[in-house]
């Protein structure tokens, strides 16, 4: 007999995966993070009403996992890096790797490039804002204060507007 959480997993998975991939820029790693987060949440399913509140809890969990992972990666690469190669010999992991469908248009490519420039905290904040969450919700999901969330969103906006302004305001030269 199917588990009643099947429907909830299927409904929320695309959003969780899209979000994790945006934060990590590494589809395989993002998928692993998302799977771990679902597994942990499902193990505690008796404590939550997942169909009602699960998406927010899930996105908060994905945020924390992605930020931790990025922090850990920096340590790993510095341990493993070549002193003569500041990138550690590793291909730039911040380079855009969006699905092919998303880079079909130049605008999509520009958005990806602009998002890739952002530190992961700003990326999380603007991504969640873009999804329509309010500042207090964003603050809760990325585990910070309301004020700090506002700063993160503001800085992310400045960077994105600088890069995307010509597209947004129609004065591309």
């Amino acid at each position: 007999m199917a588990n009643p959480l099947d429907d909830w997993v299927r409904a929320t998975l695309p959003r969780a995966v899209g979000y994790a991939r945006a934060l990590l820029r590494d589809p395989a790693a993002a998928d692993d993070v998302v799977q771990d987060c679902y597994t942990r949440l499902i193990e505690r399913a008796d404590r939550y009403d997942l169909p009602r509140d699960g998406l927010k809890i899930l996105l908060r969990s994905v945020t924390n996992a992605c930020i931790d992972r990025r922090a850990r990666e920096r340590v790993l690469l510095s341990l493993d890096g070549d002193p003569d190669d500041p990138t550690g010999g590793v291909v730039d992991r911040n380079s855009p790797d969006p699905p092919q469908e998303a880079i079909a248009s130049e605008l999509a490519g520009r958005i990806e490039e602009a998002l890739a420039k952002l530190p992961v905290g700003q990326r999380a904040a603007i991504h969640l804002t873009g999804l329509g969450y309010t500042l207090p919700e964003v603050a809760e999901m990325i585990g910070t204060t309301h004020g700090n969330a506002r700063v993160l969103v503001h800085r992310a906006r400045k960077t994105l507007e600088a890069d995307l302004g010509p597209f947004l305001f129609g004065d591309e030269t």
Partner: protein
Amino acid sequence: MSHPERPTDDPLLRVLRDHLDRQEQAVDVGPLAARILSTLPERPNPEPAPHAHPSSRPRRTWPAWTVGIGSLTLAASVLLLLVFAPSAEVRAEQAIREAEAALRLPVERCYLVEVRPDGDGTAADVLPTRTMRVWAAEDKFRVEMSRGNFRWSWGRDADGVVWLTSSPQRGLRIAPDEQGPGLLWMAELYGLRPETLLSQILAHCRLREDPRPGSNYPRVIHAEPRATARQVWLRSATLELDAETKAVRKLTLKRTNKADGGTTTVTFTLIDTRPVEHARYGLDGNLVEPFQIYDRDVQPERRREILARWVGPHLDAWLKPTPKK
């Protein structure tokens, strides 16, 4: 999936939202959904209702002599059962053989493995308590290590080569004749497959099964080496077998460390089963192109440097020193 708040007049957010929507729609989450859903527990089958159906038929009454014959038949049946029925240990042995058969299916299994050194000793220094995922198929295994939410992997391929990913684009290979004692010990510990272990348990251990409250509950079997057993590294094992599939759901081993005589408790918990992905048991299959692999023929000194940063003072325990020419 709908957005929590719509619409927005903010041009930046509108563009961003459209972009995120398109990305969500472009993501193929099918394989990942299957992985996640396969870990969901199924609803247990309800216990069969007690045999207390009220019958509408009138009760038959039997002559007294038939009761006498019935009693004799029952007594004879009980006697036969006592003489010929398998003992508790034999039943436990049968259960383990069924579990062995279940493990022979051509699939790969993912175990959540916790390794916990029990006391003072080398193992406690080299190997703090750690939980990791181990995928096993045939003689190959790979270990997905984690610290916090970061993971990397190492494993042993079909040729006995141990490999390690030191970053997504960089990996090391260590051939069987280059592997130091510490690496061999860890490979033996992490690569210990329940499939192999079951046959050793059957050959060398006394078995005891816990009583079960009902037939839908897992079978729990305890194993301890017989006095005559030569399998001295195993102190005890506890197996939890699925009532329906007969497969090993959980295996807890208390084992002696060859290196220092201390004990380590290793717990395997089955969390996933799926068709074998052979490529994932070799180094190439765990790296992202373009990648660089170091081995005895490609920059061997660079390999030592990288490994030294990874395992610190235990380098020679992992990789034998290069013989001087």
